[in-house]
């Protein structure tokens, strides 16, 4: 029966077309194997149905049978059947399409979930318009499907097809071209951007059909100009533009991307933010803005651009036309504003200059920091705008744009720095309670003022006053006045600028009559510190007081005046001022001529000091005067405290001084310099302890905030109980080579350099003892290097002695009448050994492998993630193991080093020893055992002791780091010796942990880079399986594999000799 049906089928097929029959016969065995007889029947029947469905459908049937074996492979039968049925339906419409469908199926089905086969065909049919052109487009689509599905999801394919159909409305030729391009276009666009890309393509077909194809074709190029994360947004924005105004979208796409391409990628996000801000207001303006952005960024920087745009936005909102002109840079307002912005001086740019300037003036190390940093420290400073100092750092506002020219803005900074430097130079913070003032009798001593137990002298001084705030304000005014005076006297060059800025400050002072009296007095003091007042409007009955105050105040304007004089003046002024009621006077103001000052001492006596001004009801609470902008915050008490704390911490040996926490707390509570007024009572205690701990922190750590320094490591180190030198940790960024992209990944790896922790010297000494014979042997070999360095150079004009041969020759020549040669000397020319060598040791986890095949190492936790405590416990475990005499690779590496150091010291070459280990690209730890410039010492011995296996082996960045170190050395021969135990590997160093190529290529590139910089790289490996990857890594770089690990020390020495001679 089976036979019958088969032959009848064959007969039927034969009638249709002999080719179909042949194909059927070919496919039948496979089908029979896979299908039950009933299914087989169905399968064949489907083929016949297809063949019969239309005139040329036998072609489709042919393809059907042809695709069958492969389709059966991928599809379970029910799906297989529906696959066939879908094809049959298609063949009723167009046999050509159907054939294309079946033909493309084997390659497409693996990319397609079986349930979506129907969708696929439906999508294909979108293109078919009952014309032969459309059917050929449809066929091409099916043909291209496998490639499309590789890059696109089916939904995206549908979008693409819609795009093609729209294109085909204009021209089938265009659509076919686009389809052909798809293969190149989609791989160039990131997966997450494809949907938006297609969306936009669709939109474009509607509004700018002619550009749509260009857009599609150059899609990858357009997007590649834009920073990766911003691409999607860029496309979305284009969509928004297209929706609102079709004429701009093309310009946005092509010109806009080009403009962005010119700019630093880091700015793309911010620029698009800005663009987005104006877009809703005016599309044209936004596009103009984008097109002009390179000019803007170039001129005023990105933050300047932001300011400029803010201004433009206001203009735009008011008047669209004017706004567009603004953004076209065609309005004078915009040009002016730009000019203003471009004259702005940013701290970042002048920081270094100002730092050196202040260092030169004061001789102290000061750091220039942005005021934001000081505020964040939480030690009492709260203002961002006002400049200040806390003893070691100068804090300045982030930028200055007060004036029209850069020069003027810079001199503003300069005056600020000079003023702060003046405080340091003229000793504002060096106030000493017991030091005598020169110009005033010392009332301080009479007032007593506690004993020497106060944490700072200034606190002791301010403690004298019942009203600390008033005293502090007077002191500030007087001391500023003194410092400014001294500065102007000392530095003639800056005088003019300084006075100009003083005048400007004066112009901003409040008018006296508006102030309560006591405050008005203080205001006069501030004003006279800015200029010599000739005339002041003041209540007539107060003129006597005023004259006294001015007399005292002007006394400190003298070269002889010291900070102690300022303090004495403060006492006197305090007496004067505290007697004055702080009330507003509305009448009786009259101009007092101050050009003539009496020379008489004002009548004041100490007795008045204790008398408090009568607390009348009309009195206003006293408020501090408004600060002078260029002087900023002056907090002498805090600065003195910090300086004191720092000193205490720097001299650890001295017994802890009187600075008990209680004393500190008291100081902070009392000090008028910390504004805790607005904190509620309950918070007071906690905020004081907050200040306290911050202050202490501040005192302990150095202020240095060099940008490349990182704090974390330091912090960690402090926590550990080991008493190590706080290692300075510095971070460096290096590129990494991606061989697939054939390009560097910029700033990909972070190398953290730190000094290795120190252990004991036992290991070093023990090794030398253990290998005494080997050590002396190596040493002898190295000593033999030395004599080889002298070479006798003959026939010189000048030298140590006659070269006998040359002299004889000369005689002969002379006799023979030839002009004799003058070159008759020889000299020993010392070929100075000028070698700098660096040993880079791999301390990855794998170096913990045992050398002798004793017993396998028990499982030890080898990950401590930099936690010193876990590391310590691991070490301990390691030591216990050590009793079992298990030698690890790292031990051998270390021993070789010890022996080599001894040898190197005899030759006198410069050498550095570093070890590294890595834990991801962000954390390549780089330990300094001995820096190239460092002299060999006990410390080095101790560091070697602590070298122990850690994490991974990311060789590239470590090699690049030592390369940069060697590069800085001046030496004729520079050598880099890499000692490792196996192939490079690390997290993310390659696609997965098994992939070697990426890591090897990067390492190779790093070695090549070194070579290009005239450094001789050499790889030494103790990996028994090393040969194969070394060959790849070092194809023209020297390498050696040490098979017998015990011979490493000797091999190393030999190698070194060979390389340096």
């Amino acid at each position, binding site marked *: 029966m089976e036979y019958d049906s088969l032959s009848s089928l064959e007969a039927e097929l034969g009638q249709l077309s002999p080719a179909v029959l042949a194909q059927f016969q070919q496919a039948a065995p496979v089908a029979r194997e896979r299908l039950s007889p009933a299914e087989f029947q169905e399968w064949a029947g489907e083929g016949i149905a297809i063949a019969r469905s239309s005139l040329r459908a036998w072609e489709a049937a042919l393809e059907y049978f042809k695709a069958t074996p492969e389709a059966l492979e991928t599809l379970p039968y029910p799906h297989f059947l529906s696959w066939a049925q879908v094809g049959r339906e298609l063949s009723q419409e167009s046999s050509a399409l159907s054939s294309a469908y079946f033909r493309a199926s084997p390659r497409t089905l693996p990319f397609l979930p079986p349930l979506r086969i129907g969708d696929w065909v439906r999508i294909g049919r979108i293109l078919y318009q009952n014309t032969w052109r459309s059917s050929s487009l449809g066929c091409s689509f099916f043909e291209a499907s496998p490639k499309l599905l590789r890059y696109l999801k089916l939904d995206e394919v549908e979008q693409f097809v819609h795009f093609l159909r729209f294109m085909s409305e204009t021209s089938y030729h265009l659509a076919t071209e686009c389809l052909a391009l798809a293969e190149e276009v989609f791989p160039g666009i990131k997966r997450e951007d494809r949907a938006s890309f297609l969306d936009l393509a669709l939109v474009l077909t509607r509004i700018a059909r002619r550009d749509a194809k260009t857009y599609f074709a150059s899609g990858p190029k357009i997007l590649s100009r834009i920073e990766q994360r911003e691409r999607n947004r860029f496309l979305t924005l284009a969509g928004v533009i297209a929706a609102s105004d079709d004429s701009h979208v093309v310009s946005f796409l092509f010109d806009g991307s080009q403009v962005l391409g010119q700019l630093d990628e880091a700015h793309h996000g911010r620029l698009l933010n800005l663009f987005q801000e104006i877009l809703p207001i005016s599309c044209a303006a936004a596009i103009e803005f984008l097109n002009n952005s390179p000019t803007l960024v170039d001129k005023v920087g990105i933050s300047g651009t932001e300011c400029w745009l803010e201004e433009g936005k206001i203009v735009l909102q008011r008047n669209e036309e004017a706004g567009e002109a603004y953004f076209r840079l065609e309005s004078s307002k915009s040009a002016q504003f730009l000019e203003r912005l471009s004259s702005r001086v940013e701290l970042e740019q002048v920081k270094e*200059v100002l730092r050196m*300037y202040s260092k*030169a*003036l004061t001789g102290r190390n000061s750091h220039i920091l942005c005021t934001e940093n000081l505020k964040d420290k939480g030690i009492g400073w709260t203002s961002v705008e006002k400049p200040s100092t806390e003893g070691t750092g100068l804090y300045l506002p982030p930028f200055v744009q007060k004036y029209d020219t850069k020069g003027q803005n810079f001199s503003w900074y300069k005056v600020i720095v000079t003023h702060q430097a003046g405080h340091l130079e003229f000793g504002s913070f060096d106030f000493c309670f017991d030091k005598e003032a020169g110009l005033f009798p010392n009332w301080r001593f009479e007032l007593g003022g506690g004993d020497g137990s106060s944490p700072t002298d200034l606190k002791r001084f301010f403690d004298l006053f019942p009203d600390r705030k008033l005293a502090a304000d007077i002191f500030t005014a007087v001391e500023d006045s003194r410092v400014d005076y001294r500065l102007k006297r000392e530095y003639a*060059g800056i005088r003019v600028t300084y006075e100009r800025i003083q005048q400007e400050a004066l112009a901003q002072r409040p008018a006296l009559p508006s102030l309560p009296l006591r405050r008005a007095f203080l205001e006069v003091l501030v004003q006279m510190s800015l200029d010599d007042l000739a005339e002041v409007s003041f209540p007539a009955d107060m003129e006597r007081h005023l004259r006294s105050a001015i007399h005292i105040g002007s006394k400190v304007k003298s070269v002889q005046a010291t900070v102690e004089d300022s303090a004495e003046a403060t006492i006197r002024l305090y007496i004067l001022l505290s007697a004055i009621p702080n009330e507003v006077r509305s009448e009786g103001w009259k101009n007092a001529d101050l050009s003539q000052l009496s020379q008489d001492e004002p009548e004041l006596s100490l007795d008045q000091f204790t008398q408090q001004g009568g607390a009348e009801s009309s009195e206003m609470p006293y408020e501090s005067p408004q600060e002078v902008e260029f002087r900023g915050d002056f907090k002498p008490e805090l600065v003195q405290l910090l300086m004191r704390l720092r000193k205490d911490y720097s001299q650890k040996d001295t017994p802890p001084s009187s600075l008990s926490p209680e004393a500190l707390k008291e100081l902070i509570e009392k000090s008028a310099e910390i504004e805790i007024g607005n904190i509620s009572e309950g918070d007071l205690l906690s905020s004081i302890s907050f200040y306290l701990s911050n202050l202490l922190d501040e005192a302990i750590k150095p202020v240095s905030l060099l940008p490349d320094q990182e704090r974390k490591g330091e912090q960690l180190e402090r926590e550990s109980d080991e008493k190590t030198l706080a290692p300075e940790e510095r971070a460096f960024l290096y590129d990494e080579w991606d061989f697939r992209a054939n390009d560097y990944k910029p700033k990909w790896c972070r190398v953290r350099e730190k000094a290795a922790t120190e252990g004991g010297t036992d290991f070093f000494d023990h090794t030398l003892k253990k290998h005494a014979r080997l050590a002396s042997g190596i040493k002898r070999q190295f000593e033999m290097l030395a004599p080889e360095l002298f070479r006798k150079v003959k026939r010189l004009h000048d030298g*140590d002695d006659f070269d006998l041969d040359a002299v004889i020759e000369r005689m002969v020549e002379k006799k023979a009448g030839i002009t004799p040669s003058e070159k008759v000397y020889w*000299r020993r020319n010392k070929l100075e050994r000028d070698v700098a060598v660096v040993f880079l040791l791999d301390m990855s986890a794998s170096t913990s492998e045992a050398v002798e095949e004793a017993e396998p190492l028990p499982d030890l936790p080898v990950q401590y993630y930099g936690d010193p405590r876990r590391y310590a416990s691991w070490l301990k475990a390691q030591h216990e193991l050590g009793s079992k005499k298990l030698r690890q690779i790292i031990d051998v590496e270390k021993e070789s080093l010890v022996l080599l150091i001894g040898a190197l010291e005899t030759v*006198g070459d410069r050498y550095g020893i570093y070890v590294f280990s890595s834990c991801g690209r962000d954390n390549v730890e780089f330990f300094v055992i001995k820096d190239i410039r460092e002299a060999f010492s006990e410390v080095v011995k101790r560091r070697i002791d602590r070298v122990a296996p850690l994490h991974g082996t990311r060789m590239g960045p470590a090699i690049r780091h030592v390369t940069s170190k060697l590069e800085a050395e001046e030496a004729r021969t520079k050598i880099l010796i890499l000692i490792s135990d196996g192939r490079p590997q690390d997290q993310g160093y390659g696609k997965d942990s098994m992939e070697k190529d990426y890591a090897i290529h990067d390492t190779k590139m790093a070695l090549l880079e070194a070579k290009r910089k005239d450094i001789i790289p050499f790889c030494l490996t103790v990996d028994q399986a090393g040969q194969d990857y070394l060959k790849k890594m070092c194809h023209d770089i020297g390498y050696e594999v040490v098979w017998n690990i015990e011979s490493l020390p000797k091999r190393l020495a030999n190698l070194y000799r060979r390389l340096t001679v």
Partner: protein
Amino acid sequence: MSGEGVRTVYREYMIEEYIVREEPFYLPLSDEVEVFEAAYAQKIPVLLKGPTGCGKTRFVEYMAYKLGRPLTTVKPRSKQSPSAPERGGIPLVTVACHEDLSATDLVGRYLLEGDSTKWVDGPLTRAVKAGAICYLDEIVEARKDTTVLIHPLTDHRRILPMEKRGQIIEASGNFLLVISYNPGYQSALKDLKHSTRQRFIAIEFGYPTREAEKEIVERESEVAPEMAWELAKLGEKVRNLKEHGLEEGVSTRLLIYAAKLIRDGIPPRRACQVAIVWALSDDAEVQRSLEEVVATIFE
């Protein structure tokens, strides 16, 4: 400066006859003059340490002049009667050391003359014979074999071995070896060996104080005292930048140059720019900082 180079062997120049005839200006900063006098009397070699341009060479010249004056009582202990002081002064032989300077260069060598050879003394030999003060400037630069000569000359023996001629020369009574050395910029590799170091007494030179420097600048350049003061102030400020952008502070010599330019009519800011700012650094930022300091001090 004496002006004699090292390679004077081809020229007939009586190196040992160079005597400082006019009193050089030297402002003692502390007791270095007394110390040197005592060392000279006791024939103890002297090592002068200090940064460039702080007056080491000037000091030696001054001492050579001062010690050579008849008034100075130099007790000749050696039997040989020194010839130089009779001519009215102690000769000063200055050798600027460089990295190729070898013992031969100092001692002397044979020259070919016709069919015979002729021995020519080197500067050190001449100084030894003539009883001069021999000043080896920047000694660490010289080749190591020079120590062979320096050692016997600087201990109790006071002899100069002349290997090639098979001779030994006893130093004349007036002879004294003075070497100088700048600890600042010599690399650790080129440090003085202790065996050499410990044959000398060391006089350390620092930069002068503001007052002294003002005096020096004023005397050397004949500029107005106020200007000299400002320049001294500038010197002090610029030196604060040592190791903070500058490898070495500004030398008194440069300050004097600036003063001389100012005296000749160059505006102070410009004079300081060419003589100090540009001379000290090539780094644009450092230059800018220095210029700001200059602009702060000078009108």
